[in-house]
């Protein structure tokens, strides 16, 4: 991967740490200072800040709707204070299409590492283009608008660090809500089997397992394996169905689904299951972790008839290579 600067890496880490902060912090004095600084940057009248519990607060929603209606969707996302910054972004983005590879690498890394929390609400503010422009500036000249954009982004990031998670301005009032606390898995998807994956300060919360959203009641049943295999198969949402099956006890799953063993080797067992989909038999591979002796199951493409060949597929090697694999822990 193309190298990008250490400073950009530090910026990405800073955003990531902010996204994964596990406590609600609200430094209102600092937020007022930063809002003033941001508005002064664009010579805008400083609004009155009205704190709401979370983004579902009716005042916040109404202000967001009004802003949305009055301006472009993007301007509404960023609120009026960021209008000039978005203009700068647009200018920067146009050039960015032809920009240095290093800047794209920074953007890609930023998107992966830092954007996890950005989807928490439709009106969230992400920092992808901050990272992009920040890196772009390292090796390219930028104009005054870009400079202003970077300054604004730094202020917005500091605002988030001070606890201003979401904001929208309408009628000279800035409606402000705090950051939620989020939990991610290693692929940066919302995830927790212990608590809400997104939780706002007033306990407004969302439950996810590996990026798939569940209503709380269903989330509890899935994580506690309280559904039968048949109940899992009746889940309409295919994402939820897949997650629930993967969290199920392998032995129970195979029994309840009436799975037929079609191939057995020293290390793997391949099962065919005709009770899941109407028109085809699905293949499920059962295998043992040599270190923990724990059983696992995973789906493999339905063309497989040999257990070792199916396992070799999942590691992207040939069956012959898999068969000479001596060290497995």
């Amino acid at each position, binding site marked *: 991967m193309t190298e990008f600067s250490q400073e950009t890496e530090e910026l990405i880490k800073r955003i990531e740490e902010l996204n994964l902060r596990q406590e609600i912090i609200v430094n209102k004095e600092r937020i007022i200072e930063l809002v003033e600084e941001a508005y002064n940057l664009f010579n805008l009248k400083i609004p009155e800040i009205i704190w709401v519990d979370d983004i579902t607060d009716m005042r916040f929603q109404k202000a967001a709707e009004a802003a949305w209606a009055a301006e472009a969707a993007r301007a509404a996302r960023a609120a009026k204070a960021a209008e000039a910054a978005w203009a700068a972004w647009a200018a920067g983005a146009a050039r960015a299409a032809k920009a240095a590879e290093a800047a794209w690498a920074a953007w890609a890394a930023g998107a992966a590492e830092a954007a996890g929390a950005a989807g928490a609400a439709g009106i969230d503010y992400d920092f992808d283009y901050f990272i992009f422009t920040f890196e772009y500036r390292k090796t390219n000249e930028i104009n005054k608008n870009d400079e202003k954009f970077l300054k604004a982004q730094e202020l917005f990031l500091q605002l988030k660090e001070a606890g201003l998670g979401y904001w929208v301005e309408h009628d000279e009032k800035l409606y402000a809500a705090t950051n939620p606390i989020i939990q991610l898995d290693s692929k940066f998807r919302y995830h927790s089997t212990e608590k809400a994956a997104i939780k706002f300060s007033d306990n407004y919360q969302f439950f996810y397992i590996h990026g798939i959203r569940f209503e709380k009641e269903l989330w509890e049943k899935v994580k506690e394996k309280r559904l039968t295999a048949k109940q899992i198969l009746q889940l309409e949402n295919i994402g939820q*169905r897949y997650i629930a099956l993967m969290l199920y006890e392998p032995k129970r799953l195979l029994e309840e689904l009436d799975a037929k063993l079609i191939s057995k080797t020293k290390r793997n067992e391949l099962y065919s299951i005709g009770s899941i989909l109407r028109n085809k038999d699905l293949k499920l591979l059962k295998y043992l972790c040599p270190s923990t002796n724990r059983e696992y199951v995973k789906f493999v493409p339905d063309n497989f008839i040999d257990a070792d060949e199916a396992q070799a597929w999942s590691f992207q090697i040939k069956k012959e290579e898999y068969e000479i694999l001596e060290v497995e822990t």
Partner: protein
Amino acid sequence: MKQKMFRQGDLLIREIKELPENLKRLSHKILAEGEVTGHKHQFVGNVDVYENKKGQMMFGVMDANAKLVHQEHKPILIGKGVYEVIKEREYNPFEEEIKQVMD
């Protein structure tokens, strides 16, 4: 010479002839982190870990005693050489299906 290959949990380690160009050297020795547990596949010893443009990890082992360790899996003595990491892939049979569940 026989190509060395190891598996630790969801990672397959395969020896390669040489490291390709344009790799990014990482500042840590972690090959992967568990999604749920946070457990890590990581090296103890003199090992340089790299990543290619597609996000695939590769590494060079300079220390014959370097070990790949993990909280749940037994450690593996890798041996000097250069290697690529292949992550276990998943297949989701439902991805292309539109509500064909049997009652």
